[in-house]
């Protein structure tokens, strides 16, 4: 007769021999590296493609970005006209492409900042204008923002930002990132440029200011305004806005180095801001 039996089976045949903690770290780290790589690729692609997009296309996207600053176009006509005239002179000095046109406007806010956004739109906050003592200092900040437009830094930042948030929401399954893409804070966050881009804009601006006034004193004035404002700022929101133009001590040092190499003076006669800049 057959001998029936139920012997004790060998343990561990049906279960993989593994350590779950290790598997977790290996898989988790691989995933993070992959996501990071994809995002970096997408980001690089945005950077690479931005300078090749016609300015007219960028111009078509400007509306939400301009509206987000809630500036009343009719307000401060004199100041806006004076700012515009100065921007036009700087644009000529900086050899902007023929189709690139800068539009400058004042934002009625105490924030000490200025920024460039899509479509060559530059906004100067009243807080910054009020603190600037010299025309050269104002020229420096305008030239810096114009340089960002010239190099298509804004479009690259926006393009990469949009691509990255679409990619990350796709990977992480969170659609929220795309939803509030056009929110004010997000737009400001996208205006953080890399240190290299800030430096390039600084150097271009210096060149333009020296070309116009014969010396780089405007840069010294501007950085002093930012330093003072940063020191005075008790308000958290305002210090956050500063970060769109981080004030590293190196920035001014780099400009001094450039001036030294080019034989430019970092000091010279300053012109007081024309009255037009303090009238409504």
């Amino acid at each position: 007769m057959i001998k029936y039996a139920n012997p004790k089976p060998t343990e561990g045949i049906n279960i993989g021999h593994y350590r779950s903690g290790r598997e977790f770290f290996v898989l988790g780290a691989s995933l993070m590296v992959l996501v990071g790589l994809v995002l970096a690729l997408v980001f690089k692609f945005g950077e690479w493609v931005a300078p090749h997009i016609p300015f007219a296309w960028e111009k078509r996207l400007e509306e939400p970005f301009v509206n987000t600053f809630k500036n009343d176009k009719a307000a401060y006509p004199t100041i806006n006209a004076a700012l515009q005239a100065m921007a036009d002179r700087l644009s000529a000095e900086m050899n902007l492409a023929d189709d690139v046109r800068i539009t400058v406007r004042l934002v009625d806010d105490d924030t000490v900042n200025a920024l460039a956004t899509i479509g060559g739109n530059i906004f100067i906050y009243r807080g910054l204008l009020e603190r600037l003592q010299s025309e050269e200092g104002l020229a420096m900040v305008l030239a810096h923002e114009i340089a960002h437009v010239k190099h298509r830094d804004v479009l690259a930042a926006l393009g990469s930002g949009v691509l990255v948030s679409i990619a990350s929401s796709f990977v992480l399954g969170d659609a929220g990132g795309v939803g509030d893409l056009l929110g004010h804070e997000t737009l400001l966050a996208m205006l953080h440029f890399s240190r290299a881009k800030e430096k390039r804009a600084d150097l271009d601006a210096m060149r333009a200011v020296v070309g116009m006034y014969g010396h780089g004193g405007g840069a010294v004035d501007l950085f002093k305004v930012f330093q003072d404002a940063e020191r005075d700022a008790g308000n958290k929101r305002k210090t956050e806005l500063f970060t769109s133009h981080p004030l590293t001590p190196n920035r001014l040092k780099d400009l001094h180095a450039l001036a030294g190499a080019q034989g430019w003076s970092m000091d010279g006669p300053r012109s007081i801001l024309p009255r037009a800049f303090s009238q409504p």
Partner: protein
Amino acid sequence: MDYEFLLNVGLIVVPLLLGFIFGQWNEKRHYKSILRREAELRTLMAFSSRHIPKGIEVSDPHLVIGSAVISVDYFKTFLASLRGIFGGTMSSYETLLERSRREAILRMKQSARDLGADVVFNVRLETCPVFASGGQNTTRSIEVMAYGTAIKAPVFRG
């Protein structure tokens, strides 16, 4: 650092950690209990053959059922979703399924012993997933049911 960020991270890390600690602890405890009871019930044999061997004395056939519902822990669900991206052996679920099968068979055998049976023939296993709630990332649990025909047969009496 901002509190919302900390909260979001905490909401992921804390359940993962709890899942890891309690999941491991539970699994160890469960295996211990399975091994002990399997030894106790080894004399009550179970077979998957459909036919009772001819020529033996048989009486009192009964349907016996054992079922177990066991949940995977949060940590393993998370690990499985990572595994779902890369592919490969889903080891984190294998222990869950094995424990469920062995537990179900043990309960079936226990029920047979309670009836005074000596052996279970025609043992079959059924598995079905049980979801705590819909959605993709819910913690999964499974039910495994083992059933067979328990009989009294002095030949098989250990």
